[in-house]
């Protein structure tokens, strides 16, 4: 048994769902970055303001919007989870679940840094960005459970 009462397949399916929502969330953020300057979106107050974060210098690095990096990152996590769901155990010398864990850690680190920047530098929180971060933390937790769990079907 993988989690407390979830099978390995259940955990992987959860990763697929979280990854798909992560892609949707990041894609919407990227769309707003490119298509909607000059418009308000997901602003609840001056502190919970996606616009304030979008208008900050931290919305992109070297010309690449962080949201686009999010789409790619969640895409990788989703692909790895689908591979594992289809019974693939390894990609070359690397176990699929190890790769999943490694990319989830990378995503969580990036999300932590960006959230700290929002809190302490920009002094505004983009809720959609935080949702993306939470999705990645969820995938990280599931990846840890998967790594600890023995393969069932193989």
């Amino acid at each position, binding site marked *: 048994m993988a989690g407390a*009462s*979830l*099978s*390995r*397949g*259940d*955990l*992987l*399916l*959860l990763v697929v*769902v*979280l990854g798909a*929502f992560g892609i*949707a*969330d990041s894609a*919407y953020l990227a769309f707003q970055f490119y298509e909607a*300057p*000059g*418009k*308000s*979106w*997901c*602003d*609840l*107050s*001056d502190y919970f*303001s996606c*616009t*304030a974060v*979008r*208008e*900050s*210098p931290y919305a992109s690095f070297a010309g690449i919007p962080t949201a686009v990096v999010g789409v790619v990152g969640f895409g990788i996590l989703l692909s790895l989870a689908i591979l*594992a*769901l*289809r*019974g693939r*155990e390894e990609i070359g010398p690397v176990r699929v679940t190890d790769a999943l864990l490694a990319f989830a850690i990378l995503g969580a680190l990036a999300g932590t840094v960006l959230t700290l920047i929002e809190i302490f530098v*920009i*002094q*505004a929180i983009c*809720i*959609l960005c935080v*949702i993306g971060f939470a*999705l990645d933390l969820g995938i990280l937790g599931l990846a840890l459970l998967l790594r600890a769990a023995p*393969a*069932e*079907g*193989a």
Partner: protein
Amino acid sequence: MKIENLERHVKNQHPREQVDLGGLITEAERREISKTKAAARPPITPRGKRIVAVVAIAIALLLVLVILNPFRPVGPDPGQLAPDFSLASSTGGTFTLSAYRGFPILLEFMDVDCPACLAEAPILVSLYDNYSVRGVRFVAVDVNFVGQADTLARLEQYRQDEGAEWVHVLDSNRFAVNAYGIGSTPTTFFLDRNGVVLRDPFIGRANGGYADYAAALEEALGA
């Protein structure tokens, strides 16, 4: 090589050949392969499916709620009279918005510590140079959203540093912020000669920069 990988191997090795893959393995072997592949897939339990469905619905609802955002701050709509305010000016005294009645107004909500406002300042200076002579009045309202606490002294220093000659006022008690539903800086309104809001404000930097502001000001002058 495992028999279940035979088909893929042949396709990879002879991508342009017309090989009858059906003849390579028997029907019994094909069924065995399918069974092996299915057995290799981790099983999904009915309980797991229910949990995944609940999680998916919860996240979808959350995203829809955030994107539709029914709780966003609400300011005056186009066609409505812009709320009047009297606020302390960086040059001393009190400025009242209705004192500019009879002139088109560019009304910017900003913060001296907001990077986007700083980036926008040279554009506004150019606009001021070109449109103040045509009767447009400019007003900047510091809303003190980010960074250090804003004071009239800091605001006046910003005004001088940026060469922004127009009136700058400090909204220290958030009266204007609440009246105009300001959620982020810069937010820029355009008012006609009667103090009526002309169009949706630019929230954040305008996509087209100077050209977008100029078009809005031309509309204000023509109204």
